[in-house]
């Protein structure tokens, strides 16, 4: 029997969600997250390559100017991906949530002079002129909150990402490391390094790419919930930074700022992997309503 009573549910207006997403997009397209700012400043101190240091200095000036002058951090203001975690004790009111999300994307694009970077069709490619539709993932959670994870991601680093169903001989840390390092080596220079590397492992063919994107939602001081993968992330970061690709691929030891892995159970015969590269303009924000 369906109980129509809403008395135990927390009412959240989709208009509040729309406003929050608008604010979130405006924020991330103009202000670099604090953890990335700190990582860039730290890498300026540790980088020994003169070209690398010169570029990191430009990136620091860039985020300062973007915030002060209210100019987007990058002309590729990105396509928008949003993960919405809806507490099961929430009752959404005043409209349809997915329409509200796209309304916010369209609003921020027009209001803050974001570049229109989304075309309507992969083949005919007519610009939609408002960056809609966003890619939206919805998930349920316990409780009565709505959590929004908003990401604005450039096309260059997205084009340099990959997914694959690996043979089981790769179910070995060293072999997997070789695979990941080899991909990063071939693709880092064109992805605006220093990079943030999101890796999905496990799940299914479709879900592994979502895992890689979810991995990119983490903050630099966060830890993987597994000590094995936490160590693996640190080893990968160290190895990537030994490739001498450096800022913008012109040499140096600052090739990546972070490596995050999101692992998940998988089929006995499968080893799905996805590597989602993100540029130094790592534009992600979490908002809780």
């Amino acid at each position: 029997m369906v109980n129509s009573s809403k008395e135990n549910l927390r009412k959240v207006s989709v208009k509040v969600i729309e406003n929050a997403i608008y604010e979130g997009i405006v924020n991330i397209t103009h202000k670099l997250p604090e953890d990335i700012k700190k990582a860039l400043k730290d890498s300026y101190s540790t980088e020994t390559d003169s070209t690398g240091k010169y570029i990191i200095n430009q990136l620091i000036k860039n985020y300062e100017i973007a915030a002060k002058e209210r100019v987007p951090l990058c002309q590729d203001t990105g396509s928008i991906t949003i993960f919405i975690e809806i507490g099961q004790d929430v009752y959404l009111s005043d409209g349809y949530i997915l329409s509200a999300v796209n309304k916010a994307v369209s609003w921020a694009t027009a209001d803050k002079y974001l570049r229109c970077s989304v075309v309507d069709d992969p083949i005919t490619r007519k610009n939609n002129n408002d960056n809609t539709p966003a890619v939206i993932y919805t998930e349920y959670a316990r409780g009565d909150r709505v959590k929004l994870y908003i990401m604005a991601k450039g096309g260059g680093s997205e084009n340099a990402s990959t997914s694959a169903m690996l043979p089981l001989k790769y179910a070995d840390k060293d072999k997997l490391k070789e695979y990941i390092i080899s991909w990063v080596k071939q693709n880092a220079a064109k992805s605006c390094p220093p990079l943030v590397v999101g890796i999905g492992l496990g799940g299914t063919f479709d879900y592994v790419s979502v895992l890689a994107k979810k991995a990119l939602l983490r903050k630099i001081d966060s830890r993987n919930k597994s000590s094995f993968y936490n160590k693996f992330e640190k080893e990968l970061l160290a190895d990537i930074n030994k490739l001498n690709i450096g800022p913008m691929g012109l040499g140096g030891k600052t090739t990546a700022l972070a490596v995050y892995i999101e692992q998940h159970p998988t089929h006995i015969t499968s080893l799905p992997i996805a590597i989602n590269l993100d540029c130094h303009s790592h534009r992600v924000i979490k908002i809780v309503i």
Partner: protein
Amino acid sequence: MKEVAIKTPLTDNIIHNLNIKELAKITGVVYTLRDASAVKLKEELSRKKKAGFNLDKGVIYFCGPSPTQKGKIIGSCGPTTSKRFEDYMEILMKAGVKGFIGKGPVSDTVVNMLKKHNGVYFVATGGAGAYLSTFVRSKEIIAYKDLGPEAVHKLEVKDFPTIVASAKGKTLFS
């Protein structure tokens, strides 16, 4: 790092004196190009043998700026990935272009092609579009306006910071 100040149009003499890894601060006119405008320009060049704007000793900047706010000269305007334009570079050089500004590596074929036509490839810092906008003095859309951010913009720049990435058959990306 050696710093050199250069002015467009790029004469053979200017190019002759450029070496990879040097910081080249560019002053003068550069034309933006992106995927959609590259297709149109290539088509126009093969049909009419010349473009609707002056490419002689010119510089092409692979860039699609974000829209300009009221009271500003230009929006964010950093480089886009040069690799996507490799198939257009020789036809542009035959039409007079001498320099390209973009980001990321280009193939050995392009490095050799640049040498053959006495051209140069500069890189600007990708994702530094707000910073790079401060070196733009004027902006005018001069071709394919209907393409929006992908239209050809004529930019006048002053001391626009780049790094010489490929010149005289040598490349920074190896």
